[in-house]
């Protein structure tokens, strides 16, 4: 892109500047640190110039928004036409309690819903299971049966708002409940929009919510993708997630690379059934973190879009541009929040949110300032939402598309990140692919090593956390901000509700349907239609999970630290 003669002049100028101006200046006044590096440990030089982008080819590396390779963004107008969806996650207590929070957030101007489920729902235990004791409704909302799903979305127009559900090994059951609810309310299926996380690979590598062994778990994801593509044309049946990989301690490059590796595995899994890639790939969606290191994150988002576009086009032979464009939800970094001086978290989250927007996210959750202490309070969530509204309406950063494109630093970082993502993907392929690497604990060990290296760097003072290893204050007796408290009646209320549903349903029919579910599981047929029938008959989440445990068995985690 640059004229070689002019590049040469820039190089000469840079050398002269370093020799004449810089060295004397640094001798007089040394820099703050010997070296500067990103949060993930990549060294950042003092100055970037056109000389860092020697082979830079605009059309090949960047192109135009909405066009291959989508570096500048997945859509031609980006936020000028469609602002990112402001999607604060919520979930606690009973479905009724969470429904109230949804209505509060919608009244505050939130434009999408996002559901957090409690640990028993995530792991496939009913609220009356002994393993669920103490955890019902604590870290999310408890959903046992379709009746809870009805309460959860009471008074919410599912044809008008998109709903994201953070759920994985039991995702197909929640999807079935969502479909059953829509049928009951007579909402046409092509009106449903939203996303179900349903990314089991990152559960094995990072978030650690699993039930069945790897292969049947992948089959469940495959079945839900195919069902969704056939019946729910505007629904995203999987949200391939880097967030949890990063929160578990990975670097930015690992987050992007391992997420795209999971994406490759899902595409391969669905293609094995004979489905054309262009039929389902447009419905694949992604989810990344926006962490504290501003430019590292912006470069990561841009590089991830470029790599995915190439994978889809060159590796899988996709023809449709929609199959190649990577769309992603983003969340600010929970692990960057501190329990001390919690108001500082508002500033952290605002900067992280700006990186997400300058990186071109399609939807965003900004964390509450109190999340290192508790489930976020209503006030904390409102402030987090206002942070996004200020970003969109006041700062002007959303006026122009990919405004950091062309920055010498950002383009150089994007190129480096892309190269390192490809290096990982090649290593994974050499191991026999994503599933083989997973079975060898490759991802788990890489993440554990990176997490430990970061902790050691933090303890040496190489990584500064304001309020923690610098600018400490004497710890107050109490946090000084209002916190959400768990309603102690939740578990009892939920158990009573479950007992009532079980009493009132046709249990013989439930038993018959659960048997059918087992039968389908033994074949290679799609699990979704029979699961929809099960939930309509008020089979519980735990019953459905247990029926398939009989067929699939359980996953056992190899312990790596």
């Amino acid at each position, binding site marked *: 892109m640059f004229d070689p003669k002019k590049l040469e002049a820039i190089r000469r100028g840079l050398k002269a500047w370093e020799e004449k101006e810089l060295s004397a200046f640094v001798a007089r006044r040394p820099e703050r640190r010997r070296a500067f590096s990103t949060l993930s440990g990549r060294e950042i030089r003092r100055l970037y110039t056109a000389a860092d982008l020697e082979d830079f080819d605009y059309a090949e590396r960047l192109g135009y928004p909405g066009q291959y390779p989508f570096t500048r963004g997945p859509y031609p107008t980006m936020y000028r036409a469609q602002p990112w969806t402001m999607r604060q996650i919520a979930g606690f207590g009973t479905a009724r309690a969470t429904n109230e929070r949804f209505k509060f957030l919608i009244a505050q101007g939130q434009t999408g819903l996002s559901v957090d489920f409690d640990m028993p729902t995530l792991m496939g235990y009913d609220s009356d299971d002994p393993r669920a004791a103490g955890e019902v409704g604590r870290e999310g909302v408890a959903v046992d049966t379709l009746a809870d799903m009805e309460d959860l979305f009471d008074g919410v127009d599912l044809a008008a708002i998109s709903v994201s559900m953070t759920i994985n090994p039991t995702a197909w059951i929640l999807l079935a409940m969502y479909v059953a609810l829509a049928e009951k309310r007579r909402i046409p299926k092509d009106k449903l929009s939203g996303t179900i996380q349903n990314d089991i690979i990152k559960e094995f590598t990072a978030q650690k919510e699993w039930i069945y062994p790897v292969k049947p778990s992948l089959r469940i994801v495959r079945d839900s993708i195919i069902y969704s593509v056939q019946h729910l044309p505007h629904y995203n049946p999987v949200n391939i997630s880097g967030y949890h990989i990063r929160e578990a301690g990975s670097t930015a490059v690992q987050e992007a690379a391992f997420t795209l590796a999971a994406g490759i595995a899902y595409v391969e899994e669905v293609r094995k059934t004979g489905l054309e890639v262009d039929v389902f790939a447009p419905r694949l969606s992604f989810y990344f973190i926006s962490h504290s290191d501003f430019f590292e994150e912006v470069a990561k988002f841009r590089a991830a879009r470029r790599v995915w576009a190439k994978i889809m086009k060159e590796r899988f032979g996709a023809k449709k541009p929609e199959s190649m464009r990577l769309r992603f939800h983003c969340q600010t970094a929970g692990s960057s929040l501190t329990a001390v001086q919690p108001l500082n978290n508002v500033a952290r989250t605002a900067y992280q949110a700006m990186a997400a927007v300058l990186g071109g996210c399609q939807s965003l959750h900004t964390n509450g300032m109190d999340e290192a202490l508790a489930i976020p309070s209503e006030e904390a969530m409102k402030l987090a939402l206002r942070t996004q509204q200020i970003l969109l309406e006041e700062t002007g950063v959303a006026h122009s598309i990919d405004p950091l494109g062309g920055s010498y630093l950002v383009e150089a970082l994007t190129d480096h990140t892309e190269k390192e993502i490809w290096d990982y993907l090649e290593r994974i392929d050499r191991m026999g692919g994503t599933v083989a690497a997973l079975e060898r604990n490759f991802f788990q060990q890489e993440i554990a090593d990176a997490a*430990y290296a970061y902790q050691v760097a933090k303890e040496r003072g190489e990584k500064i956390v304001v309020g923690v290893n610098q600018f400490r204050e004497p710890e107050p007796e109490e946090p000084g901000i209002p916190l959400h408290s768990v309603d102690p009646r939740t578990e009892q209320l939920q158990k009573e509700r479950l007992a009532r549903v079980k009493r009132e349903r046709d249990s013989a029919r439930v038993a018959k349907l659960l048997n059918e579910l087992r039968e389908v599981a033994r074949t290679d047929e799609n699990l979704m239609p029979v699961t929809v029938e099960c939930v309509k008959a008020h089979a519980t989440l735990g019953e459905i999970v247990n029926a398939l445990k009989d067929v699939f068995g359980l996953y056992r985690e190899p312990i790596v630290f």
Partner: protein
Amino acid sequence: MAERKVRILVAKPGLDGHDRGAKVVARALRDAGFEVIYTGLHQTPDQIVATAVQEDVDVIGLSILSGTQMIVFPRILELLRQHGAGHITVIGGGTFLPKEMRELKAMGVAELWGVDSSIQEIVDWIRRRFATS
């Protein structure tokens, strides 16, 4: 006779899968020269205490980020007493409020660390506790 190394069981009770803290601490304790056993995920209090007794550990370190601390710690302390293993030091790390930390220590939890703590603090604390003078 060679000095017996301090034996530590790092455990993750409940259904929560956030194991970054547990693993980083387990590795740091191992690097500091302690003998470390990590239970893996999804352990019930009964399983944790059974492992602690069977492995004859000196310390149980619980990692809890799920808000269940006021249920899990008392249960572990009670089970240890029932098994005649009340001498085992119980410590923990996670998202705790100052008030909860005071109450848990009053119940018999020896020490607690929040999510911002340094692993060196934990290593130093265990060394002081088991210092042979």
